[in-house]
């Protein structure tokens, strides 16, 4: 091969091979983040420590406690005998939920009188509250329905009052990992691609080799292409790594077309490389390049919809987020892996990505010239 981009790419790979630390980082980083995010960030609250204050002490009340425990959301730690004990359990953090069953529970049920079961929830963590109350409410509603049917006897079943039947598609168990892992593909690509490109050029500037390249007949485009092609390859390796581990360890499904995902990812990767390139024109040292990359990463994580729902953000924040390549790639990667979206579904996101890419490339090439000063 004789073309200059290839000569430059080969040199980049040679350097990368000698730079064990960077190489290790490029593999270790995605794996570590994947395990951290996959295991630690978990918004499905299960196994909530629970105490029971059963004032009724009948078969019916024990049956209700059994039912709650069987959902898997509540770990019943034991019974308490009064409200003071409930308070101390919640305050001390030993329990997050207390269930209080009144004395008249079973007799009320027999006489088909309305009865109340009290659920006391530690509200300091809103996530727990939502999870605990939803589960309990649906359980109690189901039980009430059963009881009504039982009481009326067969044949006399009356039409139920309006019932809302929720059916969750694509991620029926609502497991967070399924949502987070594909998103991580985007976050990790953003992080490594921006950082590696900006540092790769800042390094040449820092060591004076950029001046040597500028004075050579190498063309701007050849230099840029030669510099970024190795990193595109690395980006794909990282992406594959995350998807494979995600599917093996976290059971993340890949419902859609992988070739489509890999094809669309190229635009996203290119956009990040252009950002890195732009940063490298501003940074004089590798350290500055690194700082800029981290500075850029934060809004990406917070605004793109990776951590918080896009729809929940105030409108100006949404505008800002639309300008981030990650926002659109997250929709693409989640759409394709989880919902099996096809090209037509993802067209708009592609249009956005291409638009952002074009703007970035213009910006970067305006700044990146082969002249000094």
């Amino acid at each position, binding site marked *: *091969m*004789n073309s*200059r981009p*290839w*000569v*430059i790419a*080969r*040199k980049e790979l*040679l*350097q990368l091979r*000698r*730079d064990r630390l960077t190489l290790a980082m490029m593999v270790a980083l995605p794996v570590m983040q994947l395990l951290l995010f996959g295991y630690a960030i978990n918004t499905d609250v299960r196994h909530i420590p629970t105490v029971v204050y059963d004032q009724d002490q009948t078969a019916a009340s024990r049956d209700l406690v059994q039912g709650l425990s069987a959902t898997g959301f509540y770990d019943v730690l034991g019974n308490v005998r009064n409200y003071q004990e409930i308070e101390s359990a919640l305050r001390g953090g030993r329990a997050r939920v207390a269930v209080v069953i009144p004395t008249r529970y079973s007799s009320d049920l027999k006489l088909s009188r309305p009865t109340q079961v009290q659920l006391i929830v530690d509200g300091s963590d809103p996530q727990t509250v939502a999870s605990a109350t939803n589960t309990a409410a649906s359980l109690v509603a189901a039980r009430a329905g059963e009881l009504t049917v039982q009481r009326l006897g067969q044949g006399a079943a009356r039409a139920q009052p309006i019932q809302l039947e929720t059916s969750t598609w694509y991620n029926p168990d609502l497991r967070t990992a399924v949502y987070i892992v594909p998103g991580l593909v985007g976050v990790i690509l953003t992080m490594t691609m921006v950082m590696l490109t900006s540092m790769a050029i800042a390094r040449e500037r820092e*060591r*004076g*080799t950029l*001046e*040597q*390249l*500028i*004075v*050579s*007949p*190498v*063309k701007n485009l050849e230099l840029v292409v030669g510099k970024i092609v190795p990193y595109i390859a690395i980006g794909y390796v990282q992406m594959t790594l995350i998807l494979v581990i995600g599917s093996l360890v976290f059971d993340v499904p890949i419902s859609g077309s992988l070739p489509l995902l890999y094809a669309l990812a190229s635009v996203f990767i290119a956009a990040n490389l252009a950002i890195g390139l732009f940063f490298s024109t501003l940074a004089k040292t590798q350290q500055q390049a690194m700082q800029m990359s981290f500075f850029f990463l934060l809004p990406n994580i917070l605004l793109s919809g990776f951590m918080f729902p896009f729809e929940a953000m105030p409108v100006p924040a949404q505008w800002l987020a639309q300008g981030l390549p990650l926002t659109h790639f997250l929709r693409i990667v989640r759409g394709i892996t989880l919902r099996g979206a096809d090209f037509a579904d993802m067209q708009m996101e592609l249009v956005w990505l291409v638009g952002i890419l074009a703007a970035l490339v213009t910006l970067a090439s305006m700044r990146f010239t*082969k*002249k*000094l*000063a």
Partner: protein
Amino acid sequence: MTEPIVHTENLSRSFGALVAVRDLNLSVQKGEIFGVLGPNGAGKSTTIRMLCGILDPSGGRGTVVGFDIQREAERIKERIGYMTQRFSLYEDLSVQENLSFYAGIYGVPFGRRRKRVQEVMEATGLTQRKKQLAGTLSGGWKQRVALASATIHNPPLLFLDEPTAGVDPVSRREFWEQIHRLSAEGTTVLMTTHYMDEAERCHRLAFIFRGSLLDIGSPDEIVERRNLSVVELTTPQAVAAADCLREHSFVDEVAPYGHVLRVATYAGDAAEPQIRAVLDEQGIPVDRVRRARATVEDAFVSMVRAEHKQQEAAA
């Protein structure tokens, strides 16, 4: 006279209010070793960068290897070699990898690349160290690799920006042998330097001071034009003698070298008796006096000093 390989007319460059290079007129002939001298910040590197086409001039024009430095910079870049002050090598690549990278960048065809790298390594004595990482080489060896990289594509014109900074005397001498060999093969060399002994090894010199050209010519011509006669004297009271001599207008410069005072004067053949007379009058004993050859360094210091005086008078 053939067409000069480097030619500038009123070449200028400012950075904001600072004028780094002012109305520079230079002509370098093919095959010459041309030295650009000047103190730090005189505009030497700025000049070289403009000639290489990596810095646009803010005024004037210039041609290098027959191409316009502003409009045809990319054509120039194919035909020149450039060695920066810092020997810009990839420290994490081996000698051979560095050379073959630059061979690729300068468009040495793939089939000939390996052979060319070997040739250059042999010529510069690098074959033994071809597997060594550039970062682990000493200054002198780095300089050899940098020179080998800059000449990998056999350029007709070679720019060297302070090529011997931080290199030991033996390596410097070997480096100069290389330069003369290249010159003999027809390569034109344009270099900047601080070292006056190196300046004397150039065919022609240009003196730059505060962005302006002070003088241009062969080392002998430049020294003769200053019309200095230099005397070296040995005296036990060197400091007193120096102070006393500096007060006289026929003395241009007094520089101590150990026990010896080197006195540059404008007095021509009368320098020796005049100095003796001045020192006798003050009762300063003189052990030995002898005429010495005026050097480029004497000329350089004298020129810069005169320029300072002129500027002070103008201010």
